[in-house]
């Protein structure tokens, strides 16, 4: 062992402390990001809840067909994409690149379907006259809260789809590791988790009966 290598080795041993959580720093960073993002969504949803409860003329525009039916399909698509993401992470861990790529592209496809359905939902509401600060039915803040919350979620989905495409390419070519697939998987499951709160609060509380 050369003198430089010896010096690096001894310094490395001093500096390299074990993680208290026994996970790679990349994964811990993603967890911290997820927590901060959860609080951001929490603030938005609580703010929405405040306005929803304090307004006597809050609109309830979501009919079963097309809105709730669309939401049901979107929910199934997103939860299924979490399942394919689990398959991708698992395949990556055992080094099966072809299967990882197939699972990742299934997840990307499901994410893209979700985004397409969401955009169709938006256009439907825009056609009915919903804008950021006006709508034909009641409180003008309905559009602001609806587009802000669902828009931020949609942005997360689209970012996730792009990230998964990059990860798929990088993992196939060997410049990204199974750890990268796992970390992106954490993000993708978080996007799914947020949707579980958006559906009841934003859609189901505003059903047209």
């Amino acid at each position, binding site marked *: 062992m050369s003198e430089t290598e010896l010096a690096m080795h001894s310094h490395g041993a001093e500096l390299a402390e074990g993680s208290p959580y026994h996970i790679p720093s990349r994964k811990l960073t993603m967890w911290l990001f997820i927590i901060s993002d959860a609080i951001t969504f929490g603030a938005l949803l609580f703010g929405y809840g405040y306005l929803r409860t*304090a307004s006597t003329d809050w609109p309830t525009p979501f009919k079963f067909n097309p809105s709730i039916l669309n939401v049901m399909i979107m929910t199934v698509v997103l939860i299924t994409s979490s399942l394919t993401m689990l398959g991708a992470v698992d395949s990556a861990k055992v080094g099966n690149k072809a299967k990882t790529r197939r699972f990742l592209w299934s997840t990307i496809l499901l994410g893209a379907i979700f985004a397409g359905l969401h955009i169709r939902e938006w256009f439907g509401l825009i056609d009915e006259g919903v804008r950021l600060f006006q709508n034909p039915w009641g409180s003008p803040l309905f559009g602001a809260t609806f587009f802000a919350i669902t828009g931020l979620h949609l942005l997360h989905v689209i970012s996730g789809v792009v990230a998964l495409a990059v990860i798929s390419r990088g993992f196939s070519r060997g410049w990204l590791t199974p750890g990268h697939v796992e970390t992106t998987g954490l993000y993708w499951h978080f996007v799914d988790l947020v949707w579980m709160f958006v559906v009841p609060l934003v859609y189901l509380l505003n*059903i047209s009966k």
Partner: protein
Amino acid sequence: MAGSATSKGSATSKNVIAKYLPVYFVLLGIAALEIFLAYQHFSIGSLLAILLALAVCGGALAVMYFMHLAEERRSLFLTLIPATIFVLLMMNMIWSDSFRLLHMKPFPH
């Protein structure tokens, strides 16, 4: 060698999908139950409480199983989750104001 890794990978992926299928179906069941309850005649406050409780159950399942927090060291759970719940609960301070505004009683004199 590569072939063996591939066949092992296929078997493991099928196993992991099968392992998490019950969680998947419970999450779909929770979503279906939420939609069913939304069409029942509850007051807005009761419906909100029921839907939030169901969403928390679904979210907890996703965090513990899909995100594998149940398989990590307990220290990670204890660092992340109580702090997040505390911050989210503190945000509830604004709810009482929203009900007060609804009844046009900004301040109790």
